[in-house]
């Protein structure tokens, strides 16, 4: 079912315009000092030459979403009633220009929200109505390590289509049925002739990345028996510098933790779900005032544990990290999660 098409560079604008008529189209846009997915508007300048600062996670899994609205009412007998108004989001969303790691991130979240007995309807509905075209990476960016966690610069898992930027245009390969959305246009020419160039590009890109990574090339899921994992001093040694902000989790394509709050006004209110971060003190704060993870060391250990130990344990050795490197690239104090995991895997020093 694989289909291949080619789009000339000069046609991209026209192409995106047509695409935006099919649904809400999101493209990476340079907003000054950051690249961010925004709704495509005519004239928006799409930015494909560098990795987006924020992954497109929020398009499908918004930072805060209203689950439902509620209204307070009273019946005849002055008894309080609550009227609930469900939110049903069936909008079609198209993401153009994600990176392969970003798409892979959705697969991690899918496991939790969809591949379960009690799927999350809000996420599921959005995910099913979304179309993702990922752009393959030519060169590694600072902190990239997708190949170390099973991905790759041309990896297509989680994407409906894969785009390779060539000199004269874009090679678009549909990877799923939904992917044909990106090809069924008159603007698209047959693309088979360009396949070879693409493969060369792929090889080159993978080479550059593995050279860049050196010995960090492969990260395995952590063994639950990893000794250092429970060693407070280990975490102190490596994470004293962590300032415990939520940047790493909020920029992460695979982090999906959330919090649910009711924002109540006098006569009405809403239940909202918003991203939360395991790096925050309040994440595990219990109503009693007790907090099982009161300090940043315990919190960071949880983050590493979750991505490289607990999640793989539950989901057939799949690491909950797509190696996009954002948490390393943008960490204010340059905490390097690769280094931490690598150190954990090393035999313990005596």
């Amino acid at each position, binding site marked *: 079912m694989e289909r291949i098409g080619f789009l000339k560079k000069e046609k991209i604008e026209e192409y995106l315009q047509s695409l935006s008529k099919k649904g809400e189209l999101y493209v990476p846009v340079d907003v000054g000092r950051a690249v961010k997915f925004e709704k495509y508007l005519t004239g928006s300048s799409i930015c494909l030459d560098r990795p987006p600062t*924020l992954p497109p996670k929020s398009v499908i899994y918004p930072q805060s979403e209203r689950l439902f609205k509620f209204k307070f009412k009273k019946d005849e007998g002055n008894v309080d009633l609550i009227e609930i108004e469900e939110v049903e989001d069936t909008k079609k969303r198209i993401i153009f220009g994600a990176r392969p790691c970003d798409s892979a991130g959705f697969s991690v979240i899918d496991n939790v929200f969809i591949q379960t007995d009690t799927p999350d309807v809000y996420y599921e509905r959005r995910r099913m109505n979304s179309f993702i075209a990922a752009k393959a990476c030519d060169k590694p960016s600072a902190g990239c390590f997708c190949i170390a966690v099973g991905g790759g610069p041309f990896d297509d898992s989680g994407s409906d289509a894969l785009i390779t930027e060539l000199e004269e245009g874009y090679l678009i390969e549909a990877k799923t049925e939904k992917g044909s959305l990106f090809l069924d246009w008159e603007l698209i020419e047959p693309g088979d002739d360009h396949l070879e160039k693409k493969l060369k590009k792929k090889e080159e890109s993978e080479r550059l990345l593995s050279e860049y990574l050196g010995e960090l090339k492969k990260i395995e899921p952590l063994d639950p028996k990893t000794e250092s994992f429970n060693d407070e001093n280990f975490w102190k040694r490596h994470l004293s510098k962590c300032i*415990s902000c*939520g*940047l790493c989790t909020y920029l992460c394509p695979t982090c999906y933790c959330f919090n649910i709050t009711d924002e109540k006004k006098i006569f009405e209110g809403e239940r909202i779900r918003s991203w939360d971060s395991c790096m925050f003190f309040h994440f595990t704060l219990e109503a009693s005032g007790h907090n099982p993870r009161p300090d940043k060391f315990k919190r960071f250990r949880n983050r590493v544990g979750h991505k490289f130990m607990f999640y793989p344990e539950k989901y057939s050795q799949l690491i909950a990290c797509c190696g996009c490197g954002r948490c390393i690239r943008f960490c*204010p104090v340059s905490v390097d999660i690769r280094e931490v995991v690598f150190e954990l895997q090393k035999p313990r020093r005596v």
Partner: protein
Amino acid sequence: MVELKEKISEVFRDTNLVICWREGFDPIHATPHFVREESQIEDSIFNLFCVHNLCVYLPFLKEKAGILVKGCDSRTLIQFLQEGLIRREDVVIIGISCRGIIDVGKLMREVLYEAVTGVSIDGDSIKVKTVSREREFQLTSLLADKCKICRYPNPLIYDHLIGEPVESKVSWDMAYEDIREFEKKPLEDRLSFWTKEIGKCIRCYACRNACPLCICRDRCIAETRDPHFTSQSVELKEKFMFHFIHAVHLAGRCVECGECERACPVGIPVKMMKKKINLEMKELFDYETGINVDDKPPMYTFKAEEEKIKEHEL
């Protein structure tokens, strides 16, 4: 470098902990380095990428520590002392006279975030080698904005000093020209500017946690429901609320180290708001943060007769 390591060793013997820098995951990223063992001293560095204000770790650190500070960072220590957040006898300060540091974010953007494999600095130029090519830049073009208007290149407080004193020709007015320029814009433009900038905020709180003076950290009211100043919704007004909390709580306390702005992943000019307040603090109370240990932060004191605060007419 030899001098640096010698000084660190000397201080380490006294404190058993020195907070300094080492090289990070690539050549253009330095990372804070907690020296707790003699052997770690070898890794310590000071270069143009040692951007962090290490003072952020000091308040509530339960042990005596040595710390490295640039001129700008040193103001933080004075502010801490003013507010009684640290005790002078608990820190040993190694001050570094600084000619400016590199805006790493700017450099990464210049090289399109391509992975950097090497840098070499030669006089005023810097060669940056990425996985695919090599580029050369003028150092001045990559200098952090705060360094261009630095008035305190030399540490204002220290026990040990490294480097020759650096002269600054920046005046107060020059340092705040950006704010005055911004204020010339019409009110509506200012509102739409912040609507756009604050609209980008993802409330990751990196700005807050990177700020050495944001001492509430885990207890920040931007996250609590008691008091419930703001909800977790990403509505613009809630984001505004967070930034107001941040700015108001730093009134008369921000030392303009710029860590908030540097930490922000989406590039909100967070520091501008604090600079604006500092400008007013100077105007109203002739007060400048982090200069004099004996000063009192103006929001926590008062005068019965305020020379500069006039009653407002309607």
